[in-house]
C-alpha cells in the first residue's frame, strides 16, 4: 500500500515525463492499429455484407445481410471439415514440432564443436527456403508415378504409398513437410534458451553426481520453460493458421482431406470472390485462435502461481 507521499512523487514523475512515453509507444500502437486492428474491424464489417467482385467494382450493389454469412458457414459441411482437418493436424503437429525441435536443440547443445555449428545452419535451412521450391522438391519426392520415396520403398520390397492421393496419407505428407519446415526456427530459439542457462547449475548437478539424463530432465528442460512456452504458443498459432503446405502441395485435396481452415477461407475469398462469406470465416478463425491462446496463457499463469 503506497503512502500518500509516494503517490505524490509518482504523480509528479508522470507529469514530468510529459508526452514522451506516448510518443515512444505511439509508432508501435499506430502500426498495430493500422495493420492489425483496422483490418479486423473492416473484416468484421464486411462479414455482415454480401460483398463479392461485383460489389468491389460497384459498391452500391453491396447489401447488408446481417448474420446470414455466419449461418451459411455453420451449415456448410466443408467448413466443419476444414475445422476438423486443422484440429487433427494441430493436435498431432504441435507436439511433434516441439519434441523434434527440443531434441535437436539438446543434441546440438550437448555436442558443441564445429560439426554442431554446421548442423545448426543445416537445420535452419528449411525455414528460409522458399515455399515454392519446397513444394517442387517434396512434390517430386511424394509423386506416386516417379517419386523417389516410392522408388526406395519398392526397392526394399515394400508396397508404394499413395503419399498425396489418399486422404489419410495426404494429411501425413503435408504435416511431415510442415514439421520439417517449422523445426529449424524453433530449434534455434530453444538452442538460444539452452545457451542462456548459467553453466554453474550444470556443474553443481554434476558435482552432486547427477548423470546426463537427469541433468537434462531436471536442470535444462525446467530452466527452458519460458522458451518452451514461447515455442508452443507460436507453434499452436501457426498450426491453426496452417496454409502454405496444403496450398502448394495438394491444393487442399484429395477432396478436401488437407483443406485447412485458412485454405478454406482463402478459396472462398480469393478463388470464388465471396469476400463477405470469407470474412465471416476469418473472424471465426480469429476467435478460435484468441481463445486457444488465452487458455494457454491462463494455463501458464496457474503454473507459475
Amino acid at each position: 500500500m503506497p503512502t500518500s507521499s509516494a503517490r505524490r512523487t509518482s504523480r509528479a514523475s508522470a507529469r514530468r515525463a510529459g508526452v514522451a512515453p506516448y510518443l515512444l509507444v505511439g509508432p508501435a500502437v499506430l502500426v498495430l492499429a493500422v495493420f492489425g486492428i483496422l483490418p479486423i474491424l473492416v473484416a468484421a464489417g464486411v462479414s455482415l455484407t454480401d460483398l463479392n467482385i461485383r460489389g468491389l467494382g460497384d459498391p452500391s450493389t453491396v447489401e447488408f445481410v446481417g448474420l446470414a454469412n455466419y449461418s451459411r458457414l455453420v451449415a456448410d459441411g466443408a467448413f466443419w471439415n476444414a475445422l476438423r482437418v486443422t484440429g487433427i493436424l494441430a493436435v498431432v503437429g504441435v507436439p511433434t514440432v516441439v519434441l523434434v525441435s527440443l531434441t535437436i536443440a539438446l543434441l546440438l547443445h550437448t555436442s558443441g564443436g564445429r560439426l554442431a555449428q554446421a548442423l545448426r545452419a543445416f537445420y535452419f535451412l528449411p525455414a528460409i527456403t522458399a515455399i515454392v521450391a519446397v513444394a517442387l522438391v517434396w512434390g517430386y519426392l511424394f509423386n506416386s508415378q516417379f517419386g523417389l520415396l516410392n522408388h526406395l520403398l519398392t526397392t526394399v520390397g515394400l508396397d508404394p504409398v499413395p503419399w498425396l492421393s489418399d486422404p489419410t496419407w495426404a494429411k501425413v505428407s503435408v504435416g511431415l513437410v510442415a514439421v520439417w519446415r517449422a523445426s529449424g526456427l524453433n530449434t534455434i530459439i530453444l538452442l538460444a534458451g539452452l545457451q542462456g542457462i548459467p553453466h554453474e547449475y550444470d556443474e553443481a548437478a554434476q558435482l552432486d553426481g547427477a548423470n546426463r539424463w537427469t541433468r537434462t530432465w531436471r536442470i535444462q528442460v525446467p530452466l527452458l520453460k519460458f522458451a518452451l512456452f514461447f515455442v508452443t504458443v507460436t507453434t499452436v498459432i501457426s498450426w491453426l493458421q496452417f496454409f502454405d503446405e496444403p496450398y502448394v502441395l495438394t491444393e487442399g485435396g484429395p477432396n478436401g482431406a488437407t483443406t485447412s481452415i485458412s485454405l478454406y477461407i482463402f478459396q472462398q475469398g480469393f478463388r470464388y470472390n465471396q469476400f463477405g462469406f470469407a470474412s465471416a470465416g476469418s473472424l471465426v478463425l480469429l476467435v478460435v485462435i484468441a481463445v486457444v491462446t488465452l487458455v494457454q496463457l491462463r494455463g501458464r499463469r496457474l503454473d507459475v502461481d
Partner: protein
Amino acid sequence: MKRLQSTAVAALATTGLLLGLTACGGGDETPAADGGSTELRVWVMGDAGKTLTEVTKDFTAETGITLKIDGIPWENVNDRLTTAVASGDGPDVVQVGLSLLPTFADAGVLEDITEQVKAYPELDPSNFPDAVSPQALTGTDAVTSVPWVSDTRILFYRTDILGEAGISAAPTTWDEMRSAAKTLAARGDGQYGYYIPLWDNTLPVQYTWQAGGDVIGADGAIDLDTPAFGAAVDHWTGFFADGSAPTASDWDQTQGFISGATPMVVSGPYLARAIDEAAPELEGKWDVATLPTNVTGTSLFAGSNLAVWKGSKNVDAAVKLLAHLADPEVQVAWYEAMSELPTTADALETVAAADPKVKVYADQLADARTVPMVPGWDLAANEMATALTDIVTTGADRDSRLAQLRDKVAEIEKNY
C-alpha cells in the same frame, strides 16, 4: 535534457512512420497520353509478354502507340483482377481466359466496344467461331471482348502401344473408348488405358454435351438432373470402376503418356508441346484424333479473349491493338511462337494446312463449346468434380451423392 531528447526521438519516429504510410498510399502513374505517344498498359497471361513484344513491333512503328506489357502468372490472375477492381487501377487491354470471362463481366470491368469494333473488318464477329460470338458469350450483341487464341480438347493416343494391344485405330465412339481402355489396362500391374484428371471439371460437361444434353437448363440455371448428365456420370465413373483409369490425384499426364502407363488422354495443344519437349524420341509413336462420340462429339472450346478495361483513357488505341492482333498474319506468327491456336478462320486454315495434327484441332474446334457463362459456375463445377471423385475414390453412393451435389449447386446459385 534527456527528456527533451527522448521527446524529439519519439516525435521523429512518429513523423517518419506517418510519412512512410502516406508514401505507400501514393504512387499513382497514369500518364496523360498526349502528343501522339500513347502508351497502352497490357496484361497478358503466363509467359506471353516476350512474344507479344515481338509481334507488335510493326504496330508500334506504324501507329506510334507503345505498349507496357505485364505477364501475369495464370494462378495469380484472380488476385490481380480483384486488386485492380478494388483499387480502380487496371490496364488498358487485358487477356481474359474464357473460363474467367463470367467473373470479369460480373466485376463490370469490361468496356463495351461495340461501336469502336465496327471500324475494323478484322474484328467482325463473322471472322470468329460461333462458339465465341458475342451472342454465345453474353447473350446479347454487345461486344465486350474479342476472341484471340483458341484451345480445344482432343484425344491423344500412343499408336505404338495401341497397335501392340491389337487396336489399329483411335476409338471413335464411347463404347470403343471403353473397350480400348479396358484392353490397354489389362497389359499389367500399374498399366492403365486412359487418364482422366480428377481435377478437370470440364470433362463431365463435355460428356454431357456428347450425350446430347446440356448442364444449363432452358431457364438459364444450372441443371444437373438430366438423363444426359446421368449418362455422362456413368461414362466417367465407368473408366474408374473397371480399372481403366488411375485414381491417383497427383498423376502426371505428360509422364503417364510418355511412359505409356496411360496411353490415351484427352488434352489440349499444350500437351503436344510438352511431349515434344520432354520426349522428342516419341515422334511418330503418337497421334491425335477428334473426341469419341456418343450422340455428338462436342468438345470444350477454351482459349482467351482480349478486352478493354472499363474506364481506359485509350479505348480507341486499345481497339486498334485488338484489330492488329486479330490480323491473320499476326495470329499465325503467334501460333508459331507460342503453339496457341488462332481464332480467325483464315489463320486457323493456314496453320491447319501445314500440320495434320493441327488439322485435327481445327476440325474439333468446329464442334466445340465454351464452359457455361453463368456466375458461380466455377464453384459449382468444382463441387461436381468433387462429387464424381467421391464416387470413384471413396465409394460414395452414386444417386445420393448426386442429389447432395444438386442441393449444393442450388445453394451456390442462390448465393451468387
